[in-house]
């Protein structure tokens, strides 16, 4: 418990109780997943950078464990434990501690131990309605705690994917851009290389083999690669099959031959990722960028607009909100709408609440099918601090 005084503890407890009451009244069942979680799940889903922010340790039996860095993954695991077939709709709420190593030392707005109160909605088939429901409930929650001065920031991962799908690109480049999107510095370097029309390395063993299999069918390419391995007595190791190795050599061969991707592709993506404005204005800009490049992303854009219409109808002040296309690139499990609540006195990196849609996470955690999922968590210490700040 990060509360530094008994008084703050009481205040956090009281706030948590009323948040949970509110969530329960809205039909979200209170759950309490384990504090200690297997580290592998987080390292696999969020990546090695998690280790830099998470208390990872090995127990006496040699198992690699961690103190949960957030509650979304633990609550998702709890859902799967209860519903292994992942066919049931479920709405959960929680309030509990999460732990993050703070490289610059713990502070009031970046504590190493903090409480998250949140909601997760699994399996709701009407995604748009679920998005709106979760977002409205999160906003109602911070409001009920006494927060007056706040605004929303939105992003949408699905819209970026729609843009990539609409671009004239070989599939191997599309995959690459989708993957690199989550790695902004590498993504940027890749775009620069694209724009310059750079070709891959044309010397070395990899390139020589790529030359050799260029133009071959996948099967005969595989035979050539197998023959090379045999001749040099190299066994297959490292869990990748001959097929996978050959597939990448074929991609390399295609890159060696293909015309460089048009500069315009990089420019369109750059323009898109630079958009940050009030939602209506932002969507207009995005529509213009798409139209200028002759790309059809109407369906994805309409979905974004419909959601904004519903939010506005339900009392969300969009004039004060921002839609940032870059927003949400940090957590690879997000797949659609992402949002956060920012409050007066706290900066953009200290949101009071955040959330979004993560349709791929449950399958990655072992669900037999894709499970629509959306949730939101409140950083309760920050919420209390933001409310206190205005009150005092």
């Amino acid at each position, binding site marked *: 418990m990060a509360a530094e005084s008994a008084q703050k503890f009481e205040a956090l407890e009281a706030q948590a109780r009323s948040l949970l009451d509110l969530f329960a009244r809205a039909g979200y069942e209170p759950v309490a997943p384990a504090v200690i979680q297997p580290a592998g799940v987080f390292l696999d889903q969020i990546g090695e*950078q998690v280790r830099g922010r998470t208390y990872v340790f090995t127990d006496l039996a040699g198992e690699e464990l961690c103190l949960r860095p957030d509650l979304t993954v633990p609550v998702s695991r709890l859902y799967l434990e209860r519903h292994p077939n992942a066919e049931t709709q479920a709405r959960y709420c929680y309030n509990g501690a999460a732990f993050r190593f703070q490289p610059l030392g713990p502070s009031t707005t970046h504590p190493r131990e903090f409480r998250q109160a949140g909601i997760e909605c699994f399996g709701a088939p009407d995604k748009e309605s679920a998005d709106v429901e979760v977002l409205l409930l999160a906003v109602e929650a911070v409001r009920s705690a006494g927060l007056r001065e706040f605004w929303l920031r939105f992003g949408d991962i699905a819209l970026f994917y729609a843009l990539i799908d609409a671009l004239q690109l070989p599939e191997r480049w599309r995959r690459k851009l989708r*993957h690199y999107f989550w790695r902004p510095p590498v993504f940027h*370097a890749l775009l620069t290389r694209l724009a310059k029309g750079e070709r891959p390395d044309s010397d*070395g063993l990899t390139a020589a083999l790529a030359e050799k299999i260029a133009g071959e069918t996948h099967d005969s390419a595989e035979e050539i690669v197998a023959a090379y391995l045999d001749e040099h007595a190299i066994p297959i190791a490292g869990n990748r099959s001959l097929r996978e190795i050959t597939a990448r050599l074929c991609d390399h061969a295609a890159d060696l031959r293909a015309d460089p991707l048009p500069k315009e592709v990089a420019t369109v993506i750059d323009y898109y990722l630079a958009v940050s404005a009030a939602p209506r204005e932002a969507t207009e800009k995005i529509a213009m960028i798409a139209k200028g490049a002759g790309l059809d992303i109407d369906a994805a854009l309409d979905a974004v607009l419909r959601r904004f219409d519903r939010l506005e109808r339900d009392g969300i002040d969009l004039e004060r909100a921002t839609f940032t296309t870059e927003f949400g690139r940090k957590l690879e499990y997000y797949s659609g709408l992402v949002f956060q609540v920012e409050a007066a006195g706290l900066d953009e990196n200290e949101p009071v609440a955040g959330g979004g849609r993560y349709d791929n996470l449950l399958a990655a955690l072992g669900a037999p099918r894709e499970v629509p999922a959306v949730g939101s968590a409140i950083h309760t210490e920050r919420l209390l601090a933001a409310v206190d700040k205005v009150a005092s």
Partner: protein
Amino acid sequence: MTTSMTAPALVIAVPSKGRLKEQAAELFERAGTPLRVKGHERGYRGQLEGLGDVEVEYTSAAEIVHQLKAGRVHLGITGEDLVRETLTDVDGTVEFLKPLGFGQADVIVAVPECWLDVSRMADLEDVAEQFARSHGRRLRVATKYMNLTRRFFARKGVTGYRIVESVGATEATPTTGTSELIVDITTTGTTLKANHLKVLEDGLILKSQAHLLAAKSAAWDPRALELRETILSALST
């Protein structure tokens, strides 16, 4: 020890076993200040001949880094790889006084030789994408150098991986299937070759060797500083 002694003016930590110990002994021999073990053969304290107020502490190469960090010893001889792996603020904690020309080892990134499509670090991120797609998980890097690996991979823009900690026989893990690639030390490359691994073209993380190091937080009184200069110049001739 039964004889009472005045506190030493300077403490130097020296590796207590293996090749590093032998090579450190040869080094001081050549410098004309041979190491003398105090008491029985397996003692953990010693002296430098001719420098009566220097105490030698024999301890493991890894422990020497911790002793230097805490300032419990003034000087220490240990591998640069251990220093850079263990300390978060290397420059604020120790000073590299002199590379000693032994204990050479390269910390490298190696992948299975059969990965004909991979020759550079940048290829790893593409492999990570393909691997996640077909196996549903991240690439695993087996290593005991968790920090060096994380920093190097971050600098090279490779993120689609996770580390599995390995304390022994790291080079065998891609063959046994518990990892896909490794970060390990190599001197001649024979072990890598025997395990059908190849070093990536830009996969050299650190060219390490044994160094004489000074602890910044040790008590450096004038006599200790004087002894440090004496030892350093003896080792430099």
